[in-house]
């Protein structure tokens, strides 16, 4: 199994024969055998050259960049190594045909709301009965999905659903340090918002890295409009997984006191995780992705990370007219 690499310090990343070497400011070197790396996440300042990018391309490694505050900037997405012209044509066809596009876009929204429900139901079972009203409101919204006829309208519904769902966060976390108030994005205005933004960024790049290992083109999304400059399919697929991957992780980090107020900084750029906070988050994030769960269709256990890949395959099968896409539904 290839592993993701996270680089927090600043320095130089270069190729030395068949190995990657990271030299930090003090001249300390870290060697990383290239065949063990899945993708690289860069949080510090990084110097590199074209030779490095060529090396990463040869070895099919994506490179993701985050800014000083931990927010996603962009990726180096090497030339695809799986390439099916037929599938790309199908993907474009499903994008251009509004009925086909809406069909898929709705599935992402249903998938997202369904998994939000699963999160709420879990906390209701554990005594937070007041969340039942949230659940009802969500199902109300969910019933409006079917009648939407444009991706924009669908995105608005998605936004409403998420707003209602986020209103449950204060009940779930019950922590003064992490009160939610409302969702604020750029910049996040409080700690919980900072956590959501950070977690979502990690999910976006994880899905992007998984898309790289399929035949899909990340530039053609269905719910999120393609604007030909940005990746958007990963945003679509991430919607399905946010509640079970990101939100659950945040609740556990807060409720187990793994993150505290001191792990955040506040500045003109809003509130963001400090480096130590980011490291804690990423450590638990990686643990989560590695965790395996029973997966009945395959009659074996699979990791959380592979759940993403399996959904991407399901989308491919949908596009090939093989089997309609059913987004991953958490069982608890």
């Amino acid at each position, binding site marked *: 199994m290839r592993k993701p690499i996270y680089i927090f310090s600043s320095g130089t990343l270069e190729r030395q024969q068949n190995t990657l070497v990271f030299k930090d400011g003090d001249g300390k070197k870290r060697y990383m055998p290239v065949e063990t790396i899945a993708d690289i996440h860069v949080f510090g300042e990084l110097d590199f050259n074209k030779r490095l990018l060529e090396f990463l391309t040869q070895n099919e490694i994506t490179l993701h960049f985050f800014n000083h505050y931990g927010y996603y900037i962009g990726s180096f997405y090497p030339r695809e*190594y*799986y*390439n*099916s*012209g*037929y*599938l790309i044509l199908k993907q474009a066809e499903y994008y251009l045909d509004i009925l086909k596009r809406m069909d898929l876009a709705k599935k992402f929204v249903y998938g997202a709301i369904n998994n939000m429900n699963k999160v709420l139901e879990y906390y209701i079972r554990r005594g937070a009965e007041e969340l039942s009203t949230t659940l009802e409101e969500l199902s109300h919204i969910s019933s409006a999905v079917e009648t939407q006829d444009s991706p924009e309208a669908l995105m608005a519904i998605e936004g409403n659903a998420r707003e209602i769902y986020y209103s449950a966060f204060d009940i779930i976390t019950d922590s003064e340090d992490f009160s939610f108030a409302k969702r604020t994005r750029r910049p996040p205005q409080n700690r919980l918002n900072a956590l959501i933004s950070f977690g979502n960024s990690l999910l976006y790049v994880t899905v992007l890295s998984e898309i790289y*290992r399929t*035949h899909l083109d990340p530039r053609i999304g269905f719910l999120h409009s393609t604007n030909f400059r940005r990746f958007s399919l990963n945003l679509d697929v991430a919607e399905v997984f946010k509640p079970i991957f990101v939100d659950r992780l945040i609740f556990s980090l807060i409720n187990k006191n793994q993150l505290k107020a001191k792990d955040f900084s506040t500045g003109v750029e809003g509130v963001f995780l400090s480096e130590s906070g980011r490291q804690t988050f990423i450590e638990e994030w990686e643990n989560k992705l590695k965790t395996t769960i029973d*997966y009945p*269709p*395959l009659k074996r256990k*699979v990791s959380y990370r*592979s759940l993403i*890949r*399996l959904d991407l*395959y*399901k989308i*491919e*099968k949908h596009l*090939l*007219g*093989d*089997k309609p896409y059913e987004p991953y539904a958490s069982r608890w």
Partner: protein
Amino acid sequence: MEQQKEPQQGNEIEFYNEEQFLYTGTQVYYYVICHRKLWLYSHRVELEKSSDKVALGALLHETSYPRLKKREMLIDSLIKIDVLEESGKILEVKYSSKMIEASRLQVLYYLYYLKRKGFDGLVGELRFPRQKRKEDVILTEEKEGEVKAALQNIAQLIEPPSPPIVEWSGICRPCAYAEFCWG
């Protein structure tokens, strides 16, 4: 019109016959193994690269018969064969005899292909290093019929816009497409 590729290091032979088969040995092999796999592969929905099994097969291929003088030839940029230097036999090495039927047809296809190009009387040989076993493959008239039928079927199987529906068989478990088909 695009120029045909130059022969590489003398091991690629180009034929300029009118008749062209458009299938690779792998397609003929997959035709026997699983029609769905054939369809997916033929539409370039490939998944083999990440499979360790394939890497293992390639490694075995390279290390099985170090003293054997063989030459890899790519013909019409389409089929890749190993030729034994001494006997001129066409060799195919497989790491498992489980897929023996498929390998047989693959070699028969090579022989048929070459015969149509004017190379008559060639013989194939299958080798199974693990089982220390080998087997001659001879293109009889009957076998030729089998190959022709297979080629026709392949054309029909890969023609539809969607893959054939998934059906469980014993070879699904080790198949590189298992997660794709069953996940």
